[in-house]
C-alpha cells in the first residue's frame, strides 16, 4: 500500500498461478446449490452465519474433484495456510481438521492475490489498532525486571486486565499504577517506547522468548517508519471508530479476517511462512485492472503474443526422455549415487580418489574414459581426453582443427589486451591462404570472418570456431570412438579397488568406505567384483 503508486501503464505481471487456482476453488465452494453447506455460528448473543465445518469442506473437495481423502485434506490445509479459510476457535493454528471445527471464508480483500506484499504501514496500523483494543496488552508478556511505563491510565488497565492469573501480571499492573501520569498527547520526545532497542531488544534482564512478538514488531516498525507515525495513529483510531458503526457480529467477523490475514503474512516466530518463494520469482504487485482497453493496451498485447510465438518450445515428452536418458547414463558415474572407489575421502580420510581423478593423471580411471563416449563436449573438457584426441587426430592428419579450436578458446577467454595480437596470430597460422596449418572452413563463414578481422574483438572468430567444432564432432569424434586408440585406452584404464573394510576393534575411527552400489551384482557398469570384498563381510582381510 504505502510502497507508492504502482506504475500506470506498466506491464501487468502474472500473479502466482497457485493462488488463482485456490481462488477458483474457493469461489466454486460458494455456489448456493453445489457449494459447501453453510451453518451458523452461535456466540453468546449474536448469531453469525456462513460457517463451515472442516468435515464438510473435505467431503466437498472429495466429491467435486474425485480425489482421495488425504489429498482433500492436504488441499484444504493449503487453503487454510494461505488464508482463504480461517478457523474460528483456534485462529493461530492454521490447519484443516476433518471434524466439526468451524471455519469461515476470508473476504476477497484479504486474499493473497489482492493484497500482497503486505506493507509495513498497514501492519503498523493493525498493531496500533490491536494496541488500542487491548489497552497495551501487547506488552503483557514482558517480564518484570524491565521498567517500561505503560501510558495506559490505571483505571482502564485494571479493568481490562483479566483476573491476575500469572505472577508476571500483577507486578505489571503495579508498575502501571506507579506511573500514574497524564501526559499531553504530544511533545514527549524522549518517549517511553521510543528509546529502547539496545536494552529492550535482546534483553539482558529477561529471556527473549517471553517477549511477545507483536510487541517486538511494533517497536521495530516504530523505528522504521517513524516519519509516518502520525498517520498510523490517526488511521488506527479512525478505522476503529468506523468499525463501530457496524453491528457487533460484523465487527467480530471483520476483526477475525484481519487477524487471519496478518497471521498468514507476518507469522509468529517458529511458524513456517507460506509466502517464501525462491529468489528467481519476482514480486507480484496487485494486478492492474483495466476496464477501458486503449490502443496502448492492445499494442502491448500484440507485442507479448509475438514474443511468445517466437520462443522455442520443446515438447515435454522430448524433454523427459532426454532427462531419463541422461539420468540412466550418468547414474553409475555419480559418486553419490553409485559410491566412489576406492573410498569416499570425506568419510575415510583417504584421498586416493582425488589423486586418481586429478585433471592430468597418467592413467585415467575407467569411468572417466567411458564418460568421453557420452558427448564430444565431455571429451574436450577433460584435459586427458583432449590430449588423447589430439593424438588421434595427428594420426589422421587433421590436428590443426583442434589446435584452431583451442586457439579460439584462448581468444575468447583471454585478456582484452592480447586480443588483437592473438587474432593476428591465429589468422597467420590458420586462416591465411597458404598458411602452415590451414583449416577447412566453408566460404561463407570465411568471408564473414575475414571481414570481421578488420575490427578484432574476442568473438570475431566465433563462427569459424563453431564450424570447426561441428566438423570435428560429426566427423572425427565418431571415428575416435571406434578407433583402436580408444579401445586400448579403455582396456588400460584403471579400476580402483574398493578399500577393504577393516573391523579392528581398537581403532578410533571405524574406517568403512561408503557403500558402493557399483559393486553389487546387479550393477551394470561391469566392474570386477571379485577383488573387492563384498560390503557385507566384516571379516577384514580376504
Amino acid at each position: 500500500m504505502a510502497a507508492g503508486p504502482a506504475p500506470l501503464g506498466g506491464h501487468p505481471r502474472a500473479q502466482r498461478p497457485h493462488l488463482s487456482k485456490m481462488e477458483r476453488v474457493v469461489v466454486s465452494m460458494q455456489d448456493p446449490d453445489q457449494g459447501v453447506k453453510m451453518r451458523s455460528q452461535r456466540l453468546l448473543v449474536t448469531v453469525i452465519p456462513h460457517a463451515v465445518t472442516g468435515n464438510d469442506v473435505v467431503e466437498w473437495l472429495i466429491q467435486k474433484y474425485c480425489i482421495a481423502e488425504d489429498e482433500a485434506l492436504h488441499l484444504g490445509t493449503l487453503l487454510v495456510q494461505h488464508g482463504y479459510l480461517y478457523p474460528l476457535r483456534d485462529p493461530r493454528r492454521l490447519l484443516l481438521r476433518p471434524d466439526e471445527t468451524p471455519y469461515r471464508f476470508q473476504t476477497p480483500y484479504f486474499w493473497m492475490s489482492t493484497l500482497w506484499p503486505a506493507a509495513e504501514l498497514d501492519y503498523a496500523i493493525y498493531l496500533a489498532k490491536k494496541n488500542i483494543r487491548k489497552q497495551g496488552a501487547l506488552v503483557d508478556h514482558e517480564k518484570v525486571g524491565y521498567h517500561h511505563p505503560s501510558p495506559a491510565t490505571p483505571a482502564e488497565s485494571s479493568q481490562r486486565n483479566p483476573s491476575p492469573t500469572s505472577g508476571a501480571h500483577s507486578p505489571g499492573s503495579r508498575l502501571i499504577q506507579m506511573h500514574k501520569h497524564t501526559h499531553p498527547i504530544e511533545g514527549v520526545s524522549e518517549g517511553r517506547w521510543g528509546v529502547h532497542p539496545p536494552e529492550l531488544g535482546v534483553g539482558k534482564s529477561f529471556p527473549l522468548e517471553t517477549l511477545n512478538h507483536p510487541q517486538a514488531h511494533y517497536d521495530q516498525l516504530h523505528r522504521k517508519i517513524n516519519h509516518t507515525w502520525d498517520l498510523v495513529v490517526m488511521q488506527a483510531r479512525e478505522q476503529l471508530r468506523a468499525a463501530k458503526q457496524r453491528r457487533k457480529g460484523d465487527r467480530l467477523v471483520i476483526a477475525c479476517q484481519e487477524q487471519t490475514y496478518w497471521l498468514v503474512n507476518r507469522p509468529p516466530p517458529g511458524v513456517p511462512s507460506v509466502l517464501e518463494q525462491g529468489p528467481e520469482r519476482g514480486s507480484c504487485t496487485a494486478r492492474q485492472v483495466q476496464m477501458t482497453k486503449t490502443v496502448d493496451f492492445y499494442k502491448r498485447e500484440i507485442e507479448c503474443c509475438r514474443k511468445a510465438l517466437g520462443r522455442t518450445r520443446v515438447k515435454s515428452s522430448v524433454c523427459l526422455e532426454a532427462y531419463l536418458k541422461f539420468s540412466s547414463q550418468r547414474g553409475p558415474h555419480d559418486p553419490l549415487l553409485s559410491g566412489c572407489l576406492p573410498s569416499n575421502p570425506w568419510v575415510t580420510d583417504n584421498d586416493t580418489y582425488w589423486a586418481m581423478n586429478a585433471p592430468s593423471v597418467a592413467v585415467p580411471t575407467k569411468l572417466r574414459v567411458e564418460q568421453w563416449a557420452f558427448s564430444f563436449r565431455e571429451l574436450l573438457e577433460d584435459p586427458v581426453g583432449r590430449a588423447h584426441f589430439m593424438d588421434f587426430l595427428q594420426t589422421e592428419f587433421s590436428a590443426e582443427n583442434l589446435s584452431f579450436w583451442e586457439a579460439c578458446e584462448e581468444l575468447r577467454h583471454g585478456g582484452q589486451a592480447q586480443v588483437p595480437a592473438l587474432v593476428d596470430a591465429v589468422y597467420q597460422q590458420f586462416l591465411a591462404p597458404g598458411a602452415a596449418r590451414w583449416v577447412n572452413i566453408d566460404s561463407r563463414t570465411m568471408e564473414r570472418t575475414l571481414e570481421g578481422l578488420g575490427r578484432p574483438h574476442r568473438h570475431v572468430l566465433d563462427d569459424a570456431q563453431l564450424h570447426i567444432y561441428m566438423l570435428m564432432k560429426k566427423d572425427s569424434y565418431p571415428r575416435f570412438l571406434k578407433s583402436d586408440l580408444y579401445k586400448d585406452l579403455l582396456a588400460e584404464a584403471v579400476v580402483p579397488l574398493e578399500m577393504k573394510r577393516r573391523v579392528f576393534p581398537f581403532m578410533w575411527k571405524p574406517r568403512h568406505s561408503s557403500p558402493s552400489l557399483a559393486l553389487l551384482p546387479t550393477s551394470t557398469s561391469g566392474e570386477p567384483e571379485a577383488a573387492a570384498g563384498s560390503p557385507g563381510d566384516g571379516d577384514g582381510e580376504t
Partner: protein
Amino acid sequence: MAKEECKALLDALNKATACYHHLVLTIGGSADSQNLREELQKTRQKAQELAVAIRARLTPPLRDRGLGAEERAEFERLWVAFSGCLELLEADMRRALALGTEFPLHAPRRPLVRTGVEGGASGVAARALSARSLRHEAERDFDVEDLHQLEREILKVGEMIQDMEMKVNVPRWTVQARQTAGAELLSSASAGVSSVGGVSVQQRTGPCDLSKALAATIFSAVLLAAVALAVCVAKLS
C-alpha cells in the same frame, strides 16, 4: 489560521480514508450490494474533494521559501501525513477496482463469497460524509459504470500524487512524527473501552468467563439477599 484549517481538513480526509478502507473490505463478500457500491462512490468522491482542498492549502506554504523553520516543520509533518493518506486511498481504490471487476454484482455464474458479514454499512459511509444518514438512489446497472468512473478517478489521483511529488520537495525521512509509540492509547477513552469487550469475544473465553462470572456473582448475591430477607421475615413473623 491556515494550519488549523489544514489540520481539520486532514482529519476529515483521514476519516474518509478510514471509512473507505472499511467499506472496501467487504467488496466481494456477502455484504456486497448495490448500496455498498454507491456508498463507496460517495465516500471516495468526498475523499477526493478533501484531498484537492488540502493540497491547495498546503502547497503554497511549502513552496514559500521564507517560512520559518518551525512553521515549515509543522507543515511538512502535515504534508507527510497527507501524502501517506492519499497513497492509502489510491491503493484502496485500485483494490476496489480489481475486486469490483472480479465480483460483478449481477453475474449469475459468479457468486459472492460468503464471509459472514451481513448488514449494511451505511453508517460507515454516513460517518465519512459527516452526514446523518445516507440515501441510496442508484439505478440498476450502477456498478458497471461505477467501475469505469473508478478507473478514471484512480488515474486522476495518481496524477495528483505525481504532481505533488514534483511540485513540493519534502524528504520524508527528515520529518519527525509527533506521536510516539503507544500514543494511540492515550486518548483512547472514546475508542477503547466500549469496543474491547465486544471484539475480543471470539478469541479467548477469558472475557466471556469474566462477564459470566460477574453476572453469576451478582445473581447469587441477589439470591442470598432474598433468602436472608425471607429468613428474617419468617423469623420475625
